[in-house]
């Protein structure tokens, strides 16, 4: 399935946000969004991915 993750187009087998994070080996402090909507950590199993979806995976970064 072709989706976009942090602006990069990729082909993945994951069908949920939780599976995607495992597939891409994300770990640590992160937050997720699907098609510009926040997906809470406890809801990633229920967040179903579809062709063309846009996923954002964010982490702590320097800020002013």
């Amino acid at each position, binding site marked *: 399935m072709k989706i976009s993750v942090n*602006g990069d187009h990729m082909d993945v087998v994951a069908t949920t946000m939780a599976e995607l994070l495992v597939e*891409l080996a994300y770990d640590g402090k992160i*937050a997720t969004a699907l098609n510009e*909507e926040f997906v809470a950590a406890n809801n990633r199993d229920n967040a179903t991915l579809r062709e063309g979806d846009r996923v954002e*995976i*964010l*982490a702590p*970064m320097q*800020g*002013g």
Partner: protein
Amino acid sequence: MRRFYDTELANGLMLGTAQYPSPAILEAAFRASKAAVATVSLRREGRDGGGQPFWDIIRALGVYVLPNTAGCHNVKEAVTTAHMAREVFETDWIKLEVIGDTDSLQPDVFGLVEAARILCDDGFKVFPYCTEDLVVAEKLLGVGCRVLMPWGAPIGSGMGLNNEYGLRALRARFPDIPMVIDAGIGLPSHAARAMELGFDAVLLNTAVAKAGDPEQMAVAMAEAVIAGQRAAKATPMEPRDMASPSTPVIGQAFLS
């Protein structure tokens, strides 16, 4: 020290974490200044986990963390970012920025009030990055903000307090609201002036991070905040146009 929502801070220095020459210098500046609050952000994470070492440094500092919504230009973006920040940083504090003008990074105050309303209703403790506009301030308070963060000058400009009259008027209009001068501070004298005017804290980043010696500048800012705050508590004298001799005139010898 005034309470920010339910939290009493050890001092009035809030320091940003961006643009330092190295993580080690960032850490040294924080430790030397004893800043009470660190501002942080969220950005896209690579698969190499690049954001995690930064978070380890900030967590080890033991300071309060104030996540921002920097770079957000509309209500939806800012609200979504705030939700993501709350989960990652495990705090309901949010420095709410809704930018309206790309050149000056002036806040979109209409979007700001709307985003603040949504987030306050959702239990966030909102620190809104605003201007010195009295009406906007009143509306932010009306939707549930209990802290205001008016700018001193455009972000990163280092110009100091561009509209001191407006800031004084804001301080006087809402004497019981904790206020932070956010943005524009370039020198310790700017920070001291903000505190002399009765503001409760200053939030700065570039002035320290881009100094030749960030650690020394961080200490200078911390000392300026303390000096300004002490001066405000001490009730400064009223300035006057004409001279007034400080040495007693009575008893002066006739020697001419």
